[in-house]
C-alpha cells in the first residue's frame, strides 16, 4: 500500500522531536501574532519567514505551516471577539461568530471554531495524502474559462450570504467589484481610478478596507448604544458548546470540509471562496435561514472548517506541481528556494520525506493548535470582561498599528479611516459589508480571467458553455438564480423584509 508507506514516511519525519518542537513554536507564535487585529496569516508568515532560514528544509516548511495555521486560529479569535477580520476568510466568521459573542456565547463560538478547524485539518490531511495527484490534475483543468464561471458562482453565493435584501447584497457585490478594479489593469498595464496616488497603483489593500468597514464602523455604532452591549457570561459551563450546539455544528463541519478541500486546490480564489461558499450552502439548506447572521453556530463551524480544509489543500499544487496557488504558497516556495530546493513536479519523487513530512505535520500542527486553543478560550473570553470603555480605544490603536505596520504605509491608515466612516454609514442604512469584501477580493480575478478567456477564444462568448466544467458551474448559477426568483423564495424574502 503506497498510501501507508507515504503516511508512515511522513509521520517519521513529522514526529521527530525537532520537527515537533518547531511546529509547536510556529503554531504558538502564529497564534500570538495572528490574534492581533489586522495581521492575518499572510503578513504573519511574511513577518516570520526569516526565522526559518537557519533550519533544514523540512523543519522550516513545517514551522511555516505551523505559523500559518496558528495565525488562522488567531485571526478567527479576533474576528469572533472584536469583529475585526484580518483576512478574507474571517469576514465570514465575523458574521455569526461575533454575533454569538455579543450574546454572551463567545466561548462556544471559539471552541466550535477550534474544533471545526481541527476536524477539517484532519480530513484534509487524509485528502492530501490520498487524492493529491488527481486533485492537482483537476486544478490544471481549470483554465480562465472554468475559473471565470467558478468566480461567478462564488459571487452569487455571496448574495445568498447576506441576511438582508438580495438587491442590496447584489449592489454591494458590484460596489466591491468596482473597488477591486482600482489600480493597474493586469491586461493592459494602465492605471485605473488611482487618481495618481502611487499607493493605489496596486489596488486597494484588503486589510484596511475590512478593518474599517467591520472594526471601526462597528465601534462607532456600538458607542451610540452603550446599554445594548451584553455582559459576557462568565461561568465555565457557558464556555463549552452544548450537545445541541454539537449536533448543529457537526454536519456543517463536514460540509464545510468538503467544500474547502475542493476549492482550496484551485489557484487564486483559494482563500476567499471556501468560507463564503460554505456559509452560503449552510444558509441555503438550513430549515430556518433567518437564524443566520444572528448567531447561528453552523455559521461559525462551516466556514471555519472550509477555511482550514482549503488552507491545507492549497498546498497540493505547490507540493505536487511546484506551482503556488496564492500569495502564501508563493512565500513558501520562496522559503524552499532559499533552502536550495527546486520546487516543481519532481519534488514529490525527489524529496518524499520533505513532502510527506509536511503533510503529516499538518495533522500534528492542528492537534497542537486544538490543545493550545481550547484552554485559551477561557482566557480570550475573560478579555471581554475588560470594560468596553477601555477596550475600544485599544482596538482602535491596534487597528492603526496593524494597518500601518504590515504595509509600512500611512496611506492605508487614512484608507481605513475612510472605510470606517463608510462602514458606519452602511450600518445606518442597513446593508451588509461582507458581500462587498468578497467582490473586492474576487473582482480583479473575475475581470482578469474573463478578459483572458475572451482573448484566447477570440471573443467567442460560447466558450463558457462549450467547456464541460464551466457549463456545469454556470448551470448551478442558473439554478441558484431561478431559486432566488421563484415565488416561494420571494414570499420568504418579503417576510424577511417585513420584520
Amino acid at each position, binding site marked *: 500500500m503506497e498510501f501507508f508507506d507515504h503516511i508512515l514516511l511522513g509521520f517519521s519525519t513529522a514526529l521527530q522531536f525537532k520537527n515537533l518542537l518547531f511546529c509547536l513554536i510556529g503554531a504558538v507564535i502564529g497564534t500570538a501574532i495572528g490574534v492581533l487585529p489586522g495581521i492575518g496569516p499572510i503578513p504573519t508568515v511574511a*513577518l516570520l519567514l526569516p526565522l526559518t532560514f537557519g533550519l533544514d528544509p523540512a523543519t522550516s516548511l513545517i514551522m511555516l505551516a505551523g505559523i500559518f495555521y496558528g495565525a488562522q486560529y488567531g485571526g478567527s479569535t479576533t474576528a469572533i471577539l472584536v469583529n475585526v477580520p484580518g483576512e478574507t476568510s474571517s469576514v465570514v466568521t465575523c458574521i455569526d461568530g461575533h454575533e454569538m459573542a455579543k450574546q454572551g456565547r463567545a466561548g462556544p463560538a471559539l471552541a466550535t471554531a477550534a474544533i471545526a478547524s481541527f476536524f477539517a485539518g484532519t480530513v484534509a490531511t487524509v485528502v492530501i495524502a490520498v487524492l493529491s495527484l488527481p486533485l492537482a490534475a483537476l486544478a490544471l483543468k481549470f483554465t480562465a474559462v472554468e475559473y471565470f464561471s467558478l468566480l461567478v458562482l462564488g459571487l452569487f453565493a455571496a448574495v445568498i450570504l447576506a441576511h438582508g435584501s438580495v*438587491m442590496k447584497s447584489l449592489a454591494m457585490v458590484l460596489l466591491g467589484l*468596482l473597488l477591486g478594479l482600482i489600480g493597474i489593469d493586469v491586461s493592459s498595464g494602465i492605471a485605473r481610478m488611482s487618481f495618481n496616488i502611487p499607493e493605489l497603483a496596486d489596488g486597494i489593500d484588503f486589510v484596511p478596507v475590512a478593518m474599517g468597514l467591520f472594526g471601526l464602523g462597528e465601534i462607532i455604532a456600538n458607542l*451610540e448604544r452603550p446599554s445594548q452591549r451584553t455582559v459576557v457570561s462568565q461561568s465555565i459551563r457557558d464556555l463549552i458548546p452544548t450537545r445541541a450546539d454539537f449536533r448543529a455544528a457537526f454536519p456543517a463541519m463536514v460540509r464545510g470540509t468538503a467544500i474547502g478541500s475542493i476549492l482550496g486546490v484551485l489557484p487564486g480564489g483559494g482563500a476567499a471562496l471556501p468560507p463564503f461558499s460554505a456559509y452560503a450552502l449552510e444558509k441555503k439548506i438550513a430549515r430556518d435561514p433567518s437564524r443566520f447572521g444572528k448567531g447561528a453556530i453552523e455559521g461559525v463551524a462551516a466556514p471555519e472548517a472550509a477555511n482550514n480544509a482549503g488552507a491545507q489543500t492549497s498546498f497540493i499544487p505547490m507540493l505536487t506541481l511546484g506551482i503556488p496557488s496564492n500569495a502564501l504558497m508563493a512565500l513558501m516556495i520562496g522559503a524552499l528556494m532559499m533552502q536550495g530546493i527546486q520546487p516543481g513536479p519532481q519534488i514529490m519523487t525527489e524529496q518524499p520525506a520533505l513532502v510527506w513530512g509536511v503533510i503529516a505535520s499538518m495533522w500534528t500542527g492542528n492537534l497542537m493548535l486544538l490543545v493550545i486553543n481550547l484552554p485559551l478560550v477561557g482566557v480570550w473570553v475573560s478579555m471581554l470582561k475588560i470594560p468596553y*470603555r477601555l477596550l475600544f*480605544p485599544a482596538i482602535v490603536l491596534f487597528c*492603526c*498599528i496593524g494597518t500601518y505596520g504590515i504595509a509600512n504605509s500611512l496611506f492605508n491608515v487614512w484608507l481605513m479611516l475612510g472605510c470606517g466612516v463608510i462602514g458606519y454609514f452602511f450600518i445606518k442604512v442597513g446593508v451588509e459589508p461582507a458581500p462587498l469584501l468578497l467582490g473586492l477580493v474576487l473582482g480583479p480575478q473575475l475581470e482578469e480571467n474573463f478578459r483572458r478567456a475572451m482573448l484566447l477564444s477570440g*471573443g467567442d462568448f460560447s466558450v463558457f458553455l462549450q467547456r464541460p466544467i464551466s457549463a456545469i458551474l454556470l448551470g448551478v448559477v442558473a439554478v441558484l438564480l431561478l431559486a432566488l426568483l421563484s415565488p416561494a423564495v420571494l414570499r420568504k424574502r418579503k417576510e424577511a423584509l417585513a420584520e
Partner: protein
Amino acid sequence: MTRRRFDLPDLLFGGFLVLVAGAALATTWHLSVGTAADMGPGYFPRVVAFALLAFGLFFLGRGAGRRFHGIETIHLRPLLAIPASVAVFAVLAASAGLALASLATIVVAGLASRETRALENLVFGVAISAGAVLLFAKLLSLPVPVWPW
C-alpha cells in the same frame, strides 16, 4: 409606522451608489473599451459602473415610493472622535514616533464615549502604548520610529 413616504435607508444607499457609480464613470470614461476579443481597460469598469448606477437609481426610486422608514439617530460624538483618533495616529506616527502617537490615539479615542474616565484612560493609554511599542517596534521590529528624536 406612519403613512409618511420616503424610506431613508433606501434613499441614502441609492444616492451613495449613484455618486460612486458617477465618479467611477467620470474617471474611467477616457479608457478604451476595446472589443470582446481584445477588451480595453475601460470595458469592465464601465459595465460594472452602469450596473451600479442602475441599482442606485432603483433604490432611489424604491425609497421614494415606500412608506416612511427612518434611520437611528446619529450621535456625533463617536462619529467624530473615532475617525479623529485614527487621523491623529496617521499624522503623528511618522513624525512624533509610535509611543506618542499611540498615547494620543487612545486619549482621543476615549473622547468618543461618555463613560470614559480621563485619568483611567490616560493611565491605561500609557500602559497600552508601552505594550504596543514593545510588541511592534521591539519584538516585531516594524520600521517605525518610536520617539520623535
